[in-house]
């Protein structure tokens, strides 16, 4: 990077670097979905009220995400809203470009199809853009060494609601990747109720292990003298429930629960919550 001569030059290059990081994040997170056939089809046929709801839910999600882990240190809600709209726009533009480049969107398709495909894909891409700018960047020296290991005192607090929100974002992310695929419903049809119970136990164990036992970077510890089941009840169980609710929402959005019996729906939710639980746990470590 060239040495900035004036304050104005510096800001411009930082701004474009931020945009580039956003696009990189959108690609990193959304490419698997952009290359999934079911996602193109869903964009064409999915119920427009469900699509609209998903698009609307994404707005507060991006704003809160921007406030917590966003592009820059956002200090006001106005900045958070600004960054959220940039991320959403980056998501829409990058999805449109890639879908055109891959030949999924063609001239002879109706506007209904084209807009549906782009709108659906823009949701994961915009979350990716938001995370991309925070996770791929922000480590350079001129930004005050946020998150630096040799930073002598670096303390901050995450509220309980904040922790649950991060888990929801993590779960949503992994869920959006797999929920549209036919494999999810196929798996639930192949499984017996006993398989489902094993999957529930495995999800809870993996989730708890990820955050508390495996000593990853960013892992969590309890204050001294606290029994370990405390964290299981306070964080892992609510986290699993959140992963389950997000799974159910994704399945409903993608028409995977329509006219399906209650046990069968529950089994699909259980199998989708497995990646969701891992996503939720990983989000607590990373974000």
């Amino acid at each position, binding site marked *: 990077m060239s040495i900035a001569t004036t304050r104005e030059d510096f800001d411009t290059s930082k701004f474009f670097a931020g945009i580039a990081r956003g696009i990189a994040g959108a690609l990193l997170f959304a490419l698997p979905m952009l290359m999934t056939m079911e996602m193109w089809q869903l964009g064409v046929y999915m119920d427009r009220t469900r699509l609209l709801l998903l698009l609307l839910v994404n707005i507060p999600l991006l704003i809160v995400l921007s406030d917590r882990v966003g592009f820059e240190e956002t200090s006001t809600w106005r900045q958070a809203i600004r960054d959220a709209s940039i991320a959403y726009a980056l998501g829409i533009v990058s999805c449109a470009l890639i879908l055109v480049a891959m030949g999924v969107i063609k001239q002879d398709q109706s506007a209904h199809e084209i807009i549906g495909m782009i709108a659906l894909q823009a949701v994961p891409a915009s979350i990716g853009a938001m995370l991309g700018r925070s996770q791929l960047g922000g480590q350079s020296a001129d930004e005050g060494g946020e998150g630096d290991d040799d930073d002598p005192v670096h303390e901050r607090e995450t509220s309980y609601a904040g*922790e649950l929100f991060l888990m929801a974002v993590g779960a949503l992310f992994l869920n959006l990747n797999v929920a549209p695929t036919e494999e999810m419903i196929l798996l639930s049809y192949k499984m017996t109720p006993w398989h489902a119970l094993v999957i*529930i136990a495995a999800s809870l164990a993996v989730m708890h292990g990820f955050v508390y036992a495996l000593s990853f970077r*960013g*892992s969590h510890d309890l204050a001294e003298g606290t029994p370990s089941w405390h964290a299981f*009840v306070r*964080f892992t169980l609510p986290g699993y429930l959140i992963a389950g609710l997000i799974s159910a929402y994704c399945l409903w959005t993608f028409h995977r629960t329509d006219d399906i*019996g209650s046990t069968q729906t529950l*089994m699909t939710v259980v199998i989708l919550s497995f990646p969701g639980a891992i996503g939720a746990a990983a989000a607590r470590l990373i974000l």
Partner: protein
Amino acid sequence: MTKISNGKNIEPGAPHWIEWITGAVSGIIVIAVIVWIGKDGFMDRDTSPNLHGNVVKMEKRSDGFQVLFEIQNGSSVTASQVKIRGEIREQESVLESSETVLDYVPGHSKVGGGLIFRQNPAGKDVKVRATAFDEP
């Protein structure tokens, strides 16, 4: 609340009561799901699907007469690649038939579809039934 200090996250020993309430409610819901699925594990003894077809609606459309049907699976076992055959009959002879394939008919669920006929089925005997299926 979680305190992040030098890259380490520490959960304090004396949390707010709301954390316990959330944990307890979540625990109850998770246990309820386990009990529900476990109950089905004991109760469901079906080994094959039980498919039944119903005609839901008949309507005139641009390319003929559309018969909307519903296939119900009364068993807990899912059927895949379900072949559906619809027939318009009059006095035991088949006037016209039409076929389609449903990807899945999950256990204790119903799946809908449509068959298109050239002649008007109104006033005649219309039968829709499953003729074959695969295991998923």
